[in-house]
């Protein structure tokens, strides 16, 4: 092992640059391909995809039923099955039942629906503790759940990915899907926040 820890350790930013140079010089990677990957995950693959699924489920009862019965098939209809999102189970948050998702072993996450995971999801405190004291962890993150709310934690240890269908906020009954999409947050689709009414 040469990585980490040594006294003359250089910053990760320089080590990344060094690796890119070494592979580029030997023709093993093309910096344009690197740029394209970065752009894809910065702009194309993100929580907007998941929000589109949720808004459709909120406004189309038949789709909602299909989504909860067979998440993978319903999400495939919208084109969001792919790398790191091969099979999806969708669970619904309600006033009395709350689902929250974690990956304790790494940071598995439904990339095609939510993009790359946010920092709190990758944080050891979240990975370690939400499977042991979820009510307290959610409270630290700003979500207070009443004692009557049953919590289910989903540890995504295999290639199965979990998506939370958040509770639709009051006062949004008449809104069409395209007005709902901007309200739907990544954090609510993992289960650490509620959706706020506009």
């Amino acid at each position: 092992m040469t990585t980490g820890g040594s006294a003359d350790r250089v910053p990760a930013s320089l080590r990344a640059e060094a690796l890119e140079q070494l592979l580029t010089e030997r023709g093993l990677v093309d910096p344009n391909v690197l740029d394209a990957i970065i752009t894809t995950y910065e702009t194309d693959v993100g929580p907007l995809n998941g929000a589109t699924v949720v808004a459709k489920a909120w406004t189309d009862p038949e789709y909602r039923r299909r989504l909860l019965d067979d998440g993978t098939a319903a999400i495939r209809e919208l084109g969001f099955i792919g790398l790191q999102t091969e099979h999806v189970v969708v669970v619904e948050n309600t006033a009395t039942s709350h689902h929250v998702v974690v990956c304790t072993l790494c940071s598995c996450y439904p990339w095609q629906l939510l993009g790359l995971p946010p920092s709190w999801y990758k944080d050891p405190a979240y990975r370690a503790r939400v499977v042991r004291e979820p009510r307290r962890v959610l409270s630290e993150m700003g979500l207070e759940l009443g004692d009557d709310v049953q919590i289910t934690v989903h540890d995504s240890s295999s290639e199965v990915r979990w998506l939370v269908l958040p509770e639709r906020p009051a006062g949004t009954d008449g809104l069409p899907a395209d007005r709902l999409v901007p309200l739907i947050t990544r954090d609510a689709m993992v289960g650490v926040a509620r959706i706020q009414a506009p």
Partner: protein
Amino acid sequence: MDGIADMGGTGGWGQAHPPRVDEPTFPEPWDGRAFALALLSTRLAGWNVDAFRHALERLDRSAYLADGYFGRWLNAAELMLIESGLLAPSAIQARARNLRGEHVQEPPAPEPVRLEDAPTAAGSLRTVDAAPAFAVGERVRARHISSAGHTRLPRYVRGHTGVVELIEPASVLPDTNAHFRGENPQHVYTVRFDSHELWGADAESFALTIEMFESYLEKIA
């Protein structure tokens, strides 16, 4: 393996952080480079996702934690490239030092290691002819196995009893695939555990589900 990556239930990490609004995907420019380089390095090395995750969990504590998630990916990419003979062990360190103005001799590129093991299809989902050994609703126990290699059976469920909630699509077994010893696809089960079974009578009341490969489970006698 029983290493730093198997974090479920461990202590000493402090408080959870509230989500930040509009957090960028890659907070620092190098985060994005490291992410893309790790994806491309996995392809170059001909490694699979399980082998990459095993590279992550084999990092020492400092390499795993010091530079966060993308630093961990960078370090795992380096480990993977070294083990597949695409980079000399000191190559990144030497080049990085030269980049900051030192004059360090850089090692020559080594001979690539050819892998015999190739995936049988894209992705991780496979079909298994044998019927599932466990049924929905059946009480099962997570085996008490402490593997020196890669596994997706975390310490905190081992030895505990739960109930099969769903039978998921069969999938490549990470325990062998990570070591290039074959895909050996197995049935996968979502198993529900009660929090008091996992953490004792004083624990918060909640349910937990986790996906278990068939060989991680045993029947309740």
